[in-house]
């Protein structure tokens, strides 16, 4: 035992290097590769299908690569696909989603970061109670709050409006984001905060001059979390908007699952890929930060 510890200090960590083609390695990488097929298959099938023409799809093999690559399905999905009477493609949903996304992300992060800051350095009587309610609220099924929100939005005249949906996203993003920011601001040393106060900085002064610049990485994490979450939302989109303001996910579902007309699988898959593109780009571009974001979202408390 003592011998092992002495050795481990001098040697690199980890198990002994092994031959590349040991039976263990073949098993290990074999399993991983096999599982990777399951995970990659849908993406592959979507891409391949979206590049084929309909005659080729009818010949029948979803896995075969396209013999003739065509981008027509993508053009059609973006600009011509029909939902009900509107035939201007997914572009409408895309721009709706962008119009929902940008203010929702900014508003929810602004509010949640101030909340987290107040909860970590400016506690007041009852602040912890509200925070606890907020966190418990994150577990309440949305279905129990859907209808009261309809009434609230109707009262303030935002029902069916993009503004209403922005508000809903801000409200439901608040628990997790507030937690994220609270935990981060709590980890900032108390001395720094006290020094600023001695120098006469107030609530907003400390927030903008000290906390905000220090918290930039957590802002990026929060942004990744919100952008993917809001872009992928379907439930709120379908309930709080009307057909002209449907976000992309809702419009996509309407295009693909519409019962009228001939099913154009290649257009459907192109549309599906288009909708998945934004979060996928964020995922591949952000790498480790995405993992950090979901880990922060996952480990509550």
């Amino acid at each position, binding site marked *: *035992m003592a011998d*092992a510890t002495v050795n481990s200090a001098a040697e690199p960590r980890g198990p002994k290097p092994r031959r590349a083609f040991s039976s263990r390695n073949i098993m*290990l*990488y074999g*399993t*991983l590769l096999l*599982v990777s097929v399951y*995970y*990659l298959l*849908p993406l592959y*099938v*979507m891409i391949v299908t979206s590049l084929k023409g309909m005659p080729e*799809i009818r010949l*029948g*093999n*979803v896995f075969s690569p396209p013999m003739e690559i065509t981008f027509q399905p993508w053009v059609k999905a973006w600009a011509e696909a029909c939902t009900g009477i509107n035939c201007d493609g997914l572009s409408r949903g895309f721009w709706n989603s962008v119009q929902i996304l940008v203010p929702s992300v900014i508003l929810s992060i602004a509010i949640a970061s101030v909340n987290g800051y*107040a*909860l970590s350095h400016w506690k*007041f*009587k009852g*602040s912890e109670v*509200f*925070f606890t*309610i*907020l966190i418990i*609220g994150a*577990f309440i*099924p949305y*279905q*129990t*709050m*859907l*209808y*009261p*929100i309809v009434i*609230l939005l109707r009262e303030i005249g935002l029902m069916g409006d993009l503004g209403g949906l922005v508000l809903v996203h*801000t409200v439901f993003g*608040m628990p997790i984001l*507030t937690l994220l920011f609270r935990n981060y601001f709590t980890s900032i040393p108390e001395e720094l905060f006290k020094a600023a106060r001695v120098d006469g900085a*107030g*609530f907003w002064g400390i927030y903008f001059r000290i906390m905000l610049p220090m918290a930039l990485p957590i802002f990026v994490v929060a942004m990744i979390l919100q952008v993917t979450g809001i872009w*992928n939302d*379907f*439930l709120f989109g379908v*309930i709080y908007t009307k057909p002209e303001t449907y976000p992309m*996910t809702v419009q*996509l*579902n309407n295009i693909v699952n519409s019962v009228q007309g001939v099913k154009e699988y290649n257009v459907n*898959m192109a549309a*599906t890929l288009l*909708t998945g593109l934004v*979060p996928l780009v964020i*995922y591949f571009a952000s790498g480790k930060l995405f*993992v950090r974001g*979901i*880990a922060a979202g*996952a*480990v*509550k*408390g």
Partner: protein
Amino acid sequence: MSDRASQTTAQAKRPIQLFRNLSAKIASVPMILTALVVFVGGTAWTVTHSFTSSRLLPKLDFVGFDQYERLWNTRRWMISIENLAIYGICSLILTLLIGFTLAALLDRKIRFENTFRTIFLYPFALSFVVTGLAWQWILNPDFGLQEVVRGWGWESFAFDPLNNSEIVIFGILIAGIWQGSGLIMCIMLAGLRGIDEDIWKAARVDGIGTVKTYVRIIIPMMRPVFITALVLIASGIIKLYDLVVAQTNGGPGISSEVPAKYVIEYMFRAQNLGQGFAASTMMLVSVIVILIPWAYLEFGGRKRG
């Protein structure tokens, strides 16, 4: 209000405290409104109205437990519950199993770890609508998996979950696991990375095999990680809605309905608000039943300490 606030934190510096606390409070107004009006108020409103005979419009005409009685006598609700139970149990077991196995494999100091992790996690970035539509296409009986396997020479191969009411929920399960297991893998991997290297060394010195070390030592040590994963999966299961809408829309017939869908159909399409409220209250109750033991385990001890 402001008087009480100044009392609590006024021990250090008296005069300016009141003003400073005021701006913290003003800044917290959105949070307070959300917590009280939407979360507490909204939930209480729905629960209250679930005891009324509201149909097209909510009204306070109390009828006791009538809505609940009708709910549990509705075949569609029973199918929804049954589907959710099957989906829930299978998804819980399989997601944990797949998530942990993949994390353990990735933790064996392999090459291309980042590549594999990226592959396993990317479905999580996609929405349930995209997931549902992709798998709807792969499971298409005329062009998808079934047809491909038949093309390979296995003529009698039959796998058509989306048009077979007996197994439709498993078709949804395949898609659900595809989307969600990467997240659990990530959490498990983080948990495995947190385990001291010396444990492995000690196990090796004692001659304990790898699998046995995982089952007997590592998994018991990762209890908190497993609980987090469990809570995450469970809260995701109850929310199951978009995936079903996109992949099968409850069909064939009503054989893949789920509670969340029942609520929304009754509230916004069938214009039977009372039923929707009662069903959503049942969802809330099920969450509470799951959550209270967990909260007790997690925080019960800490508060006393």
